[in-house]
């Protein structure tokens, strides 16, 4: 299926080009992520032991919120200018095109979050031994956030108050990822064996990869109806 792969490559390149030309869109969630995490020491006081205890949860919750903030970029622009309906009418499975768009979204949102997280970990006094776990857990978890978010974004496409609504739909679904993502980092600090956390995060990723694009594609078709 060379045609099919060409289509994926073309769409991926298109999405990345558009995003890079609107670099503020890409930077906003990242800056938001940094600001939210930086607010906690200000609110709680700079006691290192306190910060260390809450660091995994704070960084993970901030990652959740930052991803959610970026979700409207996923389909909304394409919906407004009609590109999305052209996509739905292209002779390629919409599921795969959606997956491609999610991949582009993750490269521009999830990946930067993963890359910047060690910096925030230092800020929050996270021990160095937990750094690798933090990065790895985010690396496994953020794609799940993008995938589930795609379903929410597709469902709320073109609705009034879509931005707030998407948080209502998506945040409850994010809880398992939060529990095991933050749990893994906290587990390393506490010296617990965290293999199970990673297996479960990987399982969530597999589940989301198989089901979410399908649901998002169905939701897109409904939104375009």
């Amino acid at each position, binding site marked *: 299926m060379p045609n099919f792969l060409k289509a994926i490559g073309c769409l991926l390149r298109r999405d990345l080009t558009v995003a890079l030309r609107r670099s503020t869109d890409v930077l906003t969630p990242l800056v938001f992520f940094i600001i939210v995490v930086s607010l906690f020491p200000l609110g709680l006081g700079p006691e290192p032991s306190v910060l260390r205890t809450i660091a995994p949860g704070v960084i993970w919750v901030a990652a959740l919120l930052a991803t959610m903030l970026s979700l409207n970029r996923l389909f909304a622009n394409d919906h407004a200018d009609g590109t999305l309906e052209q996509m739905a009418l292209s002779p390629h499975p919409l599921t795969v095109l959606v997956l491609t768009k999610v991949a582009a979204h993750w490269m521009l949102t999830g990946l930067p979050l993963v890359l910047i997280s060690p910096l925030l970990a230092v800020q929050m006094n996270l021990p160095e031994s937990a750094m690798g776990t933090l990065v790895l857990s985010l690396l496994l978890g953020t794609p799940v956030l993008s995938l589930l978010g795609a379903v929410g974004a597709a469902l709320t496409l073109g609705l009034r108050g879509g931005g707030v609504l998407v948080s*209502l739909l998506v945040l*409850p679904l994010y*809880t398992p990822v939060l529990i095991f993502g933050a*749990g893994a980092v906290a587990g390393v600090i506490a010296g617990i064996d965290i293999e199970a956390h990673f297996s479960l995060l990987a399982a969530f990723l597999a*589940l989301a990869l198989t089901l979410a694009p399908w649901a998002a594609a169905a939701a897109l078709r*409904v939104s375009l109806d």
Partner: protein
Amino acid sequence: MQYMHKYASPKFFYTLAGKLTPWMAALTAVLLVAGLYLGLFVAPVDFQQGESYRIMFIHVPAAWMSMFIYVCMAGAGAIALVWNVKLFEMFAGNCAPVGASFTFLALVTGSLWGKPMWGAWWAWDARLTSELILFFLYIGYMALEASIDDPRRAARASAILALVGVVNIPVIHFSVEWWNTLHQPASVGKVGTPSIHPSMLAPLLLMSLGFTFYFFTVALMRMRNEILERERHTTWVAQLLESKS
């Protein structure tokens, strides 16, 4: 499929539901009264929790209902999506407020039960926490449905959400349970399910059955309203209203 379309025609269903509702309501009343009688008067005092355990006869059926209704909602949504049947769309949409109110009931009674048992109104107990997330899922479903103007589009979009939710509920439930065993402080005892005595099981089952029939009664009533409203362009609704006035 042909049968489904015949019985699923709004006109036919409207009359059928109208005939069924009083019977279901009566059955609900009988079941609930019997359940209450057995639960409040017959069932013996629990030797560990005293009389407070009688909250269970509300709390546990309500919690069961909250999950049962969500599954019904997702199932009806799936049928509506696949076969494009209007009635199932309406059923799914009308499940949500009833389900959400049972979830709310389960949460508050859980809290009322928790206060004498744990000494606190709220504890991050696994079952209460997953019930809370279920409540959020219901709210999200209703918010999505309310913000789409076209009723058929709203039904299809929220059906997809319900299906995503139904896949997620076991995952969420298991995650919260696991998280809870890891973090649970020793002082908080579980509101337990010790081996349940038949004299307690009977009212529990009766109450659950009563709630189930109550749910179907209310859902039918809601559906009848919606059918009238959405079929207002048809002649049968005009005739029906004319004959009534």
